[in-house]
């Protein structure tokens, strides 16, 4: 089946098998390997990407279901060589150790800050329930999201004025 998908602003058209999962379309067809395959059972969240702005587990979405959709992956966050504030937060606050869960963590955190620019620690933890990290114990991840939230709030008034 022919699908047309916009990924990180670029539009692609491919003929895919209906059973192809979105995560494999991104990794194997588009070669965007920043999105990881973890548990493959919709639990760990390593494969999280944004589909039309909503965080989804791309191991549990068919590529054909993404036909016509806008997808954002971890590769689509940095602009002009500048890390996105969420990425910067994970860097500055040491929000990762092995890094396997990080792309998914960052995409889920990104969605949280779109929906709630000033989350409490409890709200951050609640929003990341679908993402498992086996290294950090989560505290540094919470710190990273808080860092990003603050940075994004500071830059928001300036951005809206331009």
């Amino acid at each position, binding site marked *: 089946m022919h699908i047309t998908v916009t990924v990180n602003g670029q539009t692609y058209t491919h003929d895919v098998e*209906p059973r192809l999962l979105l995560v494999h379309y991104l990794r194997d067809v588009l070669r965007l390997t920043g999105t990881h395959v973890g548990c493959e059972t919709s639990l760990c969240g390593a494969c999280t990407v944004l589909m039309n702005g909503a965080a989804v587990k791309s191991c549990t979405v068919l590529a054909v279901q993404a036909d016509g959709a806008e997808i954002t992956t971890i590769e689509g966050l940095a602009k002009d060589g500048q890390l996105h504030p969420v990425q910067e937060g994970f860097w500055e606050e040491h929000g990762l150790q092995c890094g396997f869960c990080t792309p998914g963590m960052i995409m889920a955190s990104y969605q949280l800050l779109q929906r709630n620019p000033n989350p409490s620690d409890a709200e951050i933890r609640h929003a990341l329930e679908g993402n498992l990290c086996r290294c950090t114990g989560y505290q540094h991840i919470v710190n990273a999201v808080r860092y990003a939230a603050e940075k994004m709030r500071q830059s928001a008034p300036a951005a809206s004025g331009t």
Partner: protein
Amino acid sequence: MFPRPFDYLRPTSVAEATRLLASHAEAKVLAGGHSLLPMMKLRLASPRVLIDIGRIPELTGIREENGMLIIGACTTHYAAESSPLLRRHCPLLAETAAAIGDVQVRNRGTIGGSLAHADPAADWPAAILAVEAQLKLVRRGAERLVPARDFFVDLLTTVMQSDELLTEIHVPVNPPRTGSAYLKVPQPASGFALTGVAAQVTLGPNNTLERVAVGITGVSSKPYRATATEQALQGQAATAEAVAQAATQATAGVEALADIHASAEYRLHLARVYTKRALLRAIERARG
């Protein structure tokens, strides 16, 4: 993990979807895919044909019509959890939606998909029973409304026929002085309910319980109404003692599931304790 190959059909209207269902006996309906796709990846299900109803506009959204809330079957859990209409007129449904899985699952999973799948540990069934919803089933050239308490038959089994499509969930708008609560004990890894209790009460004059409904999921092979508990409280004063007494009957006649996460005895115990807690919270909220 890959599903077995299948043909993929994507109708754009209910009429087209029911026509396809009538002509493909071996087809399964795909909504958000968060129950079906995991089963297909594990090869527990291998349908030859998938009919994707995710692009049918008339199946999405929540509206109010003559004192009823009409919820499209493809409304996501997240849309339900954040719906101002549900929060105002039937907060039990918004509270239940927010308790499902995690945010990624709630972004994709749908109320209709969950109900049609009838997982015995799903959250929606408890709430759907407690609010006395009706489910609209459409087949080619015919439709019927099924009360929630007649919908669930057994483990992963409902009254739906293979050519029927669940299109809408109809829920009455809450009368004044109504309160509700959904409380669950999640299995820590999956988030599915070891026990989930949805309670909704309406208070009459002198704080008597005019209407009491309790739906319970996760405990047995199908969700059920705690009828004995409801009858014990009907018309009674809404006191903590009366609730505690009535909650001991929440598992009367129930045969419980057992697995490595919880024994049957433990599930039954949780159901009685959470029935009490959910009712007390519902009464507190009804008082305002």
